[in-house]
């Protein structure tokens, strides 16, 4: 996660500088480079290779072409998981962005005790997703949680048990995801807001532009860096959604809240079909790789343009 944040910041750094080989820095980071190369890069290559084999419990090299992928896309468990990740992703991304931004704007109004509020909003992010998931599972449990306590207050036909119904379980997950994620969105957005030059605000005021329009059309476009960081953080979090769902529903009721990452883990550990798990893992890698490639292209194009203009 940290390296995502640093890339996002690094993008904003000046593109050209005098070439000098920084030996000390290279030697200093060499262990890290070796580790990340061997752990991440080599591991990813093996994941892709094994996805073309019929590996069972132990990975092997008996190649079967695209058979694992054919099976993957004809399995309803995977289809459900992919639909879920889209729904969960779009929902939690949009709500998190909007909610986080509104919270940031609220914090930006020079309110009293800002640090107290900031801590409260940021607190959920410091909790592990398993704890978040368990807490929300209890809150939403029909026999222990909100439903039962409100019924005990006298409203006997009150019904709020989203997790036990196939159609609504995913909304329960989205709520927990937002509770967990909007705080950190707020923090980054707030940093972005604070980074906007006060002169811009004064200029907008002199021109008589209403505050909401200043936010929407002037400030937000100026916060590209913060927005980019938030987006990348959220997207990578969404693609590997596992612990939250595992703690809240374990993919149920039935298979209604299955997620791709759970599919991968299940095939490696329980179903003893590493080949199938690797095929699913490769599919998970694809959108992230795509985003990174697009980002790299955009960055190079921008850098080149800046270089020409200079």
């Amino acid at each position: 996660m940290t390296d995502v944040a640093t890339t996002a910041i690094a993008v904003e750094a000046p593109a050209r500088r005098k070439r000098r080989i920084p030996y000390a820095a290279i030697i200093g980071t060499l262990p890290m480079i070796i580790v990340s190369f061997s752990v991440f890069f080599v591991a990813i290559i093996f994941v892709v290779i094994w996805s073309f084999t019929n590996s069972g419990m132990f990975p092997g090299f008996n190649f079967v072409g695209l058979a694992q992928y054919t099976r993957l896309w004809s399995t309803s468990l995977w289809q459900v998981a992919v639909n879920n990740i889209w729904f969960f992703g779009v929902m939690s991304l949009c709500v998190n962005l909007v909610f986080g931004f509104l919270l940031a704007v609220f914090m930006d109004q020079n309110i009293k005790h800002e640090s107290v509020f900031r801590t409260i909003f940021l607190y959920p992010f410091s909790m592990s997703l398993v704890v978040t998931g368990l807490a929300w599972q209890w809150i939403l449990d029909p026999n222990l949680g909100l439903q039962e306590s409100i019924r005990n207050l006298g409203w006997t036909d009150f019904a709020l048990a989203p997790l036990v119904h196939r159609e609504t379980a995913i909304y329960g997950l989205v709520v927990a995801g937002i509770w967990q994620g909007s705080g950190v969105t707020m923090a980054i957005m707030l940093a972005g807001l604070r980074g906007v030059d006060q002169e811009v605000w004064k200029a907008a005021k002199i021109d008589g532009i209403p505050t909401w329009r200043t936010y929407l059309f002037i400030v937000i476009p100026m916060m590209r860096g913060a927005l980019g960081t938030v987006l990348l953080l959220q997207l990578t979090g969404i693609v590997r959604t596992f612990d939250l769902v595992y703690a809240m529903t374990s993919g149920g009721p039935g298979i209604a809240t299955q997620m791709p990452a759970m599919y991968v883990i299940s095939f490696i550990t329980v179903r003893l079909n590493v080949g199938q798990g690797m095929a699913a893992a490769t599919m998970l890698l694809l959108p992230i790789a795509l985003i990174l490639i697009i980002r790299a292209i955009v960055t190079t194009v921008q850098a080149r343009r800046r270089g020409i203009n200079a």
Partner: protein
Amino acid sequence: MMKFTLATIAVATLLGGTAVKATDLEVIHWWTSPGESRAVNEFAKAFDNDGAGDHWVDNAIALGETARAAVMQRVAGGNPPGAAQFNPGRQYEELIKNNQLLDLTDLATKEGWDKIIRPATISDPCHIDGKWWCVPVNIHSNNWAWVSPAAFKTAGLEVPKTWDEYIADLPKLKDAGIIGFAAGGDGGGWQLNLAFGVIQTQDLGQANRDKLLKDKDQSIALGDGMKKAFTDFRTLKQYTDEGLPNRNWNDSTALVIQGKAALQIMGDWARGEFGAAGKVPDKDYVCWALPADHPLVTTSGDVIVFPKQGNPDVEAAQLRLASLLLSPKVQANFNNAKGSMPVRDDVDMSLADPCMLKGLSIIKDPANIQIDSNRWLTPDTQSAFNDLISQFWTDDSMTVEEAQQKYADILAAAQ
């Protein structure tokens, strides 16, 4: 994900570094309910007191698939446990294929396991091509229903005599606020799949059921018997409660014990729960052997495997434990506590209760033994069935025909 595996390996190596005494034997199992832990305690006690200074290091992990996954990860990571529980069948075939299990053949020949374990269908999953790879410790049958007379009394009903009477009583039970059919959806839906398997046998008959699962017969999968099984299963669904998703099997059994639910289809390990709660058979609860018109006992149950260790001291302790698990006294104590039947015939079963006696009388005729589906299906295929059955259960928009087609597709792809 890779990071996850590496972390597991790292942790495993760390644990390996602080290696325990030579005769400490770590045993991974999923016997975690009150009845089950009473039973496994019999093993631990016997092993600790075997006079060789052995020590049973208990590692109970709730939920079978989680426990098995832990064993597999430990073996793959090079730090296998001393012994591990599996269900007889194909769950551990990859361990045998990859030469990860201790060969028990010498001990088995010396003690004559092939003569004392009866019937042969019980030892087959361990006795493969003349070699012994595991120790069967009990015979469990899936084909049981556990009935609460108190629940029927609350609804003003007599305890039904037949399965059809029970189905007819369901609406009245519901009106009285009783859960007609107790089940739980944890662990990918294995409880639902188990209940479905029993209803499937009831609707298909033993011969066709075997043809379906052993020979992967497509015409049976798409035929009328399976149609009836899926339809019957959907009927039962109407009489369950909101707490079902994520509930584990012994909490479902507890509903029957407390009289909140009328009936649960569950293997006879549920009997251990009634025993642990101090309930008396035929008075506080009733056990039905299923299928209703011709009861069968399945060859489910548990085996213990011994992953290779490369340390002769530990290996000797593994063999001592293997021998101990089959000794008549340990078999009697363990199976009485667990609700299962012993794997050998010469065991003192004077403590056996009416339910176990019912099972023992059924098993006398080898024709009444039903091979468990784990024997023919890989964990991959079983999990795919779990997925389908629990999806069918929760999603009323899936038609019976669709479910049959998907069932047939899974069978066709099974290895």
